[in-house]
């Protein structure tokens, strides 16, 4: 640590030049502050996006039928395709490496759901037990649908936590019956989902619902998750599925609108790349701001040396060595940048914490934060830069000829 002597010298010099000290400090502090805020915002975006994807398994392949847009095997274009239970069974048995899978019969309109005097229109989605993992559903009460429900066409359902509150008030819904389109279903579980939207619904056993809604063996979607594989592997799986369905339904494999096969993993990677770009951009801007700060420190130190030519001349006349002059200027420069840098860091950090505390989260922006290590490194960097910024003017100061300085 520096001696008290040195501190006294620094403080007396700073007191001497309050305005320019404040200006230097401001430029450095501002630079760090902006960097912290930008990094925080960048992380907020990343966190928000990650949270969005957390709602669904990251490595999901969604399959849903569409309408052909290319002629194939004598069929005209504009043919509407449908998926069947059989397709699900084939995909399950023939595609290797699938972790979770579910089939859905998506009923577009909401169904009328009644419990005692409470009623409402809610989405009722017929699914398979694997759906729990593909939607990142957490069961908070009871259980999710199981294979027995499917096999035995049981009239059971699982409801989102907000719906329990709407329909059951303070009652425990487990074991109670709700009427969906006048058919009683027994509530076997209550679930939550990271996505608010995905909680406003009931899940029904696929087989039961296909019967109830007169859907025969029709499916609207098949979802599978590819487990822990690379993007290339998961894309290969998607291609296998496409090839299989193309053969079965005789559509052109290149006809993307005949069968929509979307790979969440690829999408996720793409968005992560965009976020990576944004982060890089944030860094570039932050570093530019820092450089501007450093340049202004350097500028101001040059002015300092010019302003203090006479003082430095006096000091040299009474025995200050060039080294002591260099150290004096650099110490001052480092002290100002360090103080300002850490203040900027503190204020920036404080602001981010405050924003987190108030909660400004939205869909794609969550929990802005800054890696402490990066923040402190950036601040240390600007302090080193401050030392360098002071160094050249200090060398100039050390070369001041006392004769000329005192004559001025």
């Amino acid at each position, binding site marked *: 640590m520096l001696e008290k002597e040195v501190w006294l010298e620094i403080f007396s010099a700073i007191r*001497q030049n309050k305005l320019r000290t404040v200006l230097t400090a401001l430029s450095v502090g501002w630079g760090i502050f902006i960097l912290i805020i930008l990094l925080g915002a960048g992380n907020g975006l990343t966190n928000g996006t990650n949270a969005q994807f957390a709602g669904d398994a990251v490595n999901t392949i969604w399959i849903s039928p569409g309408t052909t847009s290319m002629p194939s095997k004598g069929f005209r274009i504009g043919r509407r395709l449908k998926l069947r239970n059989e397709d699900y069974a084939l995909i399950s048995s023939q595609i290797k490496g699938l972790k979770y899978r579910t089939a859905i019969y998506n009923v577009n309109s909401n169904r009328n759901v009644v419990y005692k005097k409470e009623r409402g229109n809610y989405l009722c989605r017929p699914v398979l037990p694997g759906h729990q993992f593909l939607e990142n559903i957490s069961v908070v009460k009871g259980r999710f649908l199981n294979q027995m429900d499917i096999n035995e066409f049981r009239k059971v359902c699982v409801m989102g936590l907000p719906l329990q509150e709407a329909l059951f008030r303070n009652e425990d819904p487990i074991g109670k019956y709700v009427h969906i389109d006048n058919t009683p279903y027994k509530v076997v579980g209550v679930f939550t989902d990271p996505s608010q939207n995905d909680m406003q619904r009931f899940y029904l056993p696929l087989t039961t619902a296909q019967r109830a809604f007169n859907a025969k063996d029709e499916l609207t979607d098949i979802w599978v998750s590819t487990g822990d594989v690379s993007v290339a592997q998961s894309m290969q799986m998607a291609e296998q599925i496409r090839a299989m369905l193309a053969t079965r339904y005789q559509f052109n494999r290149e006809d993307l609108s005949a069968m929509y096969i979307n790979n969440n993993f690829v999408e996720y990677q793409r968005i992560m790349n965009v976020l990576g770009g944004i982060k890089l951009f944030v860094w570039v801007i932050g570093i530019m701001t820092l450089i501007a700060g450093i340049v202004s420190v350097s500028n101001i130190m040059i002015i300092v040396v010019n302003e203090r030519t006479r003082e430095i001349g*006096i000091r040299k*006349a*009474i025995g*200050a*060595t*060039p080294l002591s002059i260099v150290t004096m200027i650099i110490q001052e420069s480092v002290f100002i940048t360090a103080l300002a840098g850490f203040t900027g860091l503190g204020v920036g950090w404080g602001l981010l914490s405050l924003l987190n505390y108030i909660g400004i989260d939205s869909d794609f922006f969550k929990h802005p934060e800054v890696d402490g290590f990066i923040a402190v490194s950036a601040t240390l960097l600007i302090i080193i830069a401050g030392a360098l910024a002071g160094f050249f003017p200090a060398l100039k100061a*050390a070369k001041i*000829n006392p004769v000329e300085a*005192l004559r001025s």
Partner: protein
Amino acid sequence: MINIQGLHKSYKLGKTSFEVLKGIDLTISQGEFVSIMGSSGSGKSTLLNILGILDNYDEGSYTLNGLLIDRNLSPKQAAQLRNRFLGFCFQSFNLLSFKNAADNVALPLYYQKVGRKERLKKAHEYLEKVGLLPWANHMPAELSGGQKQRVAIARALIGQPKVIFADEPTGALDTTTSYEIMSLFREVNQQGITVVIVTHEDDISKMTQRIIRLKDGRIMNT
């Protein structure tokens, strides 16, 4: 104490070079009280700067206190020699405006790495010698010209120098104050310290023991 042989010094001004000192031989013994006189441009300030190791010379030799002052002395060595052997007073006092009287006086000791307490104790001692102890905590702006010069003299003395150089020390003072400052210099001289004063005022130079007259870079009579 001071011995100079065949000293030359020229300054470059653009492409032309002006020879300011054209061969100076000068001896000043220990304990002398001398003044260097000359009109402006005679080279007296240049000579004083070389004597004070504030500037280097081109040719000749300079011995101070038996020590040859090499003309290629490093700035660091020069600073150390100044700190150890020499004290300075200037026409414009050259006090640091943001330090009080005691801190100004103590400054040379800072560069001798003397602790702050010790430094301030000594500074008060020397301020008492020049009769300014009650003003120890005043800033330079609160002092009169004569008082500022006294502070400067105390600062020059605190390092216990062998020689004190004063460049027009009375140039900014009225006659009465000038005489007071000169009698202070005489007291200092009586303690055995060599005092060299540069002046262009006849009455000031007459208060010294010997007058060295410079004209056009040469000494006229000794």
